[in-house]
């Protein structure tokens, strides 16, 4: 099969040790098999796996990959994946962001960018269409993510370049440092910012001018015109623009699945002080959208009075608002904005940060950690000053912050007594959904290839709404479907939210892909490609020591019944979980220890670029 569009068929490989860059051609077969985005990243990580020992090894590689649909006239085509071995977990890691960064990278003529080696001095990678440079710039040292973006746009005298940068936390190798672009979009999870930091790369700057390759532009336009109209006529379209993901606070609170007080509770009695309506009434000053997205789920919020006055951010989104709000017992939305702004500027993941601070507060409340261990801090729920101080300490690796900066792994090594109250899987802290009421959600967290993140399988709503009586087999099918379709979005370079929130038919993506590439594929055929790659991330993780022992949801899911709300009293049953995990392995074709047939995987994925 010959590709007629969709790809430049070029990978830009930057070698910081040699100080050079080379455009590596990609074959049609490679593009078709791995699709793009996360798919390209996984394959490159797999091929490079034997060349390095730790995520901070100079020979480790970070891949930045938009997809074949990124930047095109279709709903929410602004996604880019960042893929590497995660410093937070030591296993496969990826995180994606919206905005325009991937669009610019594609317009520069590359389907993906891979960076390896380590620059001698703090530098940025400058991709100006075909001209590539590694520019030393020690003046960027210690600067925040947004500051870096401003400085470089000024110095390069171009407001239209796209810049991905790391903050102080990335430089300090905080293991959950993120990468920020376009004034506050973040590839937040799994510590991709620390990988860049370990390579002495403070930013990637891109300017692209090329036409994006599309086989049948007329067809793409027709399909998308209809798609945009469908989204715009959805009954929740305007509400979505107004609140975006902040609307989830009320949903999660009412459904009794909103992490509160370090995942102990599921409802927050002051949720109305931190929900979408509170944001709209007092803080929101504008909307922001990723590239080509009509839904504009981003909010721009400004604190107009009080001690946080003048703090402005793109955000917060649900995860951040929940992790710094209810999860820490904070009922002041302005404080959430402040915490979000600090994390964005330092470049640290808000989910992990909120999660770990919650553990400290509960740890101190229950006597698991002493005041001395926290350097004299007396933390309590809703302790705004303590929270803000801890965020600083993490970014600068000061005091207890130095331990927190190493993520769950670091915390448990120094304070193993916190294990029962630290919600994490494979070393990645749980994101903001309770998993005790829905076993499929627990399975989703437990078997996600990056750790306890909802992006792979967010099945909680479906199970609670219609699947409570489903058999375990059906629930496994649901998890596997999510773990297949959601990564497919990350491979194509589009956002999943039109599908989740406004009922956008996922089959349309197959039609769009066919129009763009000139190769007609059905959704099932695309899903098969995505599903195959789940075997490959698993194989990477198995090689890095992951097995059945790591496929369990956080301890709290089994130990502490839900105290209130519609699912009060519910807790996961160990036997039932063992059963569902066994069914999951069987349906995945993995053995009883959760291992895919490694020889077959090696053979299936031994192809060259």
């Amino acid at each position, binding site marked *: 099969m010959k590709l007629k569009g969709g790809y430049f068929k070029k990978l830009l490989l930057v070698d910081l040790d040699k100080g050079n860059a080379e455009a590596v051609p990609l074959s049609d077969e490679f593009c078709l098999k791995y699709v793009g985005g996360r798919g390209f990243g996984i394959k490159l990580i797999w091929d490079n796996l034997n060349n390095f020992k730790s995520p901070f090894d100079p020979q480790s590689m970070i891949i930045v990959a938009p997809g074949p649909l990124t930047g095109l006239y279709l709903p929410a085509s602004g996604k880019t994946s960042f893929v590497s071995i995660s410093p937070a977990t030591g296993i496969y890691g990826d995180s994606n962001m919206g905005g325009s960064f991937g669009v610019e990278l594609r317009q520069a003529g590359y389907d993906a960018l891979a960076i390896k080696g380590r620059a001698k001095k703090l530098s940025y990678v400058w991709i100006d269409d075909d001209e590539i440079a590694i520019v030393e710039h020690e003046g960027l040292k210690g600067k925040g993510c947004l500051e870096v973006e401003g400085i470089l746009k000024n110095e390069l005298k171009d407001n*239209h370049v796209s810049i991905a940068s790391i903050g102080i936390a990335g430089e300090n190798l905080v293991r959950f440092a993120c990468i920020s672009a376009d004034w506050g979009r973040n590839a937040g999870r799994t510590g991709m910012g620390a990988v860049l930091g370990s390579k002495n790369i403070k930013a990637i700057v891109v300017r692209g001018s090329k036409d994006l390759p599309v086989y049948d532009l007329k067809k793409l336009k027709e399909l998308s015109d209809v798609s945009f109209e469908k989204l715009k006529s959805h009954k929740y379209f305007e509400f979505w623009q107004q609140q975006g993901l902040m609307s989830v606070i009320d949903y999660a609170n009412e459904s009794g699945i909103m992490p509160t007080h370090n995942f102990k509770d599921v409802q927050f009695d002051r949720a109305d002080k931190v929900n979408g309506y509170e944001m709209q009434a007092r803080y929101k000053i504008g909307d922001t959208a990723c590239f*080509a*997205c009509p839904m504009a789920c*981003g909010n721009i919020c400004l604190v107009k009075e009080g001690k946080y006055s003048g703090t402005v951010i*793109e955000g917060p989104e649900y995860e951040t608002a929940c992790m710094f709000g209810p999860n820490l017992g904070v009922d002041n939305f302005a404080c959430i904005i402040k915490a979000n702004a600090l994390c964005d500027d330092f470049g640290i993941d808000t989910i992990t940060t909120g999660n770990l601070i919650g553990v400290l507060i509960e740890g101190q409340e229950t006597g698991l950690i002493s005041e001395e261990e926290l350097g004299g801090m007396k933390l309590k729920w809703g302790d705004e000053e303590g929270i803000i101080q801890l965020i600083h300490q993490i970014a600068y690796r000061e005091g207890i912050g130095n331990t927190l900066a190493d993520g769950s792994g670091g915390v448990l090594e120094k304070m193993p007594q916190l294990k029962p109250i630290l919600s994490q899987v494979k070393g990645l802290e749980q994101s903001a959904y309770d998993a005790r009421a829905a076993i499929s959600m627990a399975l989703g967290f437990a078997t996600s290839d990056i750790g306890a993140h909802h992006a792979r399988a967010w099945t909680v709503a479906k199970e609670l709404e219609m699947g409570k009586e489903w058999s375990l087999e059906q629930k496994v099918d649901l998890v596997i479907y999510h773990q297949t379709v959601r990564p497919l979005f990350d491979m194509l370079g589009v956002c999943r939210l039109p599908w989740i929130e406004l009922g956008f038919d996922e089959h349309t993506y197959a039609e769009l892909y066919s129009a763009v590439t000139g190769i007609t594929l059905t959704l099932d055929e695309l899903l098969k490609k995505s599903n195959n790659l789940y075997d490959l991330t698993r194989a990477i993780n198995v090689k890095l020591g992951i097995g059945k022992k790591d496929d369990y949801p956080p301890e709290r899911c089994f130990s502490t019944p839900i105290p209130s709300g519609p699912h009060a009293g519910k807790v996961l049953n160990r036997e039932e979980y063992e059963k569902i995990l066994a069914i999951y392995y069987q349906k995945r074709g993995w053995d009883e220890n959760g291992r895919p047939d490694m020889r077959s995987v090696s053979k299936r994925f031994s192809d060259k670029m």
Partner: protein
Amino acid sequence: MSRKLTVIPERCSGCRLCEVVCSINRFGVNNPKKSSIRVMVLYPHPVIRMPIICRQCKVPKCRENCPTDAIISKDGYCTIDEEKCISCQQCVMSCPFGAIFLHGDISVPFKCNLCGGDPQCVKSCPKKALLFVPEHTLGQTHRMASVLKYTKMKEVEYVEKGEKKILRYADGERIKEER
């Protein structure tokens, strides 16, 4: 009736759909860098997103400064005659709004031609930040705001379908003050 393309920057989300649609319609390619509308995002000082559009000035600086008379005004918009244009970029530099653009692939500068009278960017804007309105309605929002803010309006409460409402009015009979 003459219509004007106009922008409400406060509504703009920065999604750049206008740019993509423009490039498809005008040049038949998916390339936001080849659009005649450009979204500027300034952050965080100040915080604003604003699409830059050609205002189709009636006394166009671009036309005035064109040494070869390549800029033609007709039907309420200006276009660049590619035959006459020598691509000296005088128009680009003289537009007070920066609404004339250049791209390495294209030999002459390009600017908005209102898609011949049916601007596609307006249709594509999901936030209604771009409007194509009759010329005489421009400024109407401000005129309206000015009326609503008139300080001497009086209020009377009334109940409609059990709901308390307020009617505001200017009392022509009771006005005492002289200006």
